């Protein structure tokens, strides 16, 4: 049973690398921001899977805070890019 979670964790790590390719290659700045948002989503998912694999509930709290901070950061970057700030 733990094997399936570990495999999912490895798959998500590979997907994070795949999104990082777009983060490095993206032709414009908003491209990179969108890729960063996808990386944040993947990190939240893998953090929750890590809570199951390690059997430590604290990772779920960490995932909540991470999602909240990534949303606030995304809003600030968007406002800054639109030159409204």
């Amino acid at each position, binding site marked *: *049973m733990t094997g*399936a*979670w570990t495999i*999912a964790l490895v*798959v*998500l790590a590979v*997907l*994070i690398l*795949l*999104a990082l*390719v*777009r983060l490095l290659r993206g032709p*414009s*700045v*908003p*491209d990179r*921001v*969108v*890729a960063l*948002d*996808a990386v944040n*989503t*993947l990190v*939240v*998912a893998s953090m*929750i*899977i890590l*809570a*199951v694999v390690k059997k430590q*509930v604290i990772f*779920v*709290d960490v*995932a*909540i805070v991470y*999602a*909240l901070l990534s*949303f606030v950061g*995304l*809003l600030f*970057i*968007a*406002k800054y*890019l*639109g*030159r409204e700030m």
Partner: protein
Amino acid sequence: MINELFTIVLLLSGSIFMLLAAVGICRMPDLYTRMHAAAKVGTIGVILILGAVILSFRELAIATQCLLIILFFLLTAPIGSHMIGRAAYLTGVKLWKGTRVDEWGAAGTDTLEKQSPSSAEPPPDETAS
């Protein structure tokens, strides 16, 4: 037994949706289509994986926290991608050449590059006409 089966199915489908999101991030031709892939498919993937975690732990406290994360993603993913797309359009990121409808461009919205007289950049493609 049936519980583990449901957990595996949810985890597998969530991982597949995450794979689709990442492949869409890499392969889509345009910022806006990439954003579409990242926001919607990524949200569905996170929700399915959280459902698998809820079924795996089967405790009320963790289920509440996971439902909170689901609600938070459902609230914030559209807002975030809307803000990024708006900022990208205002700064003049080009649409894909196969785009059929560009309502904001047809309405004559001034982008920042049109407003500033110094930059000689052409406005974004107005393929909708």
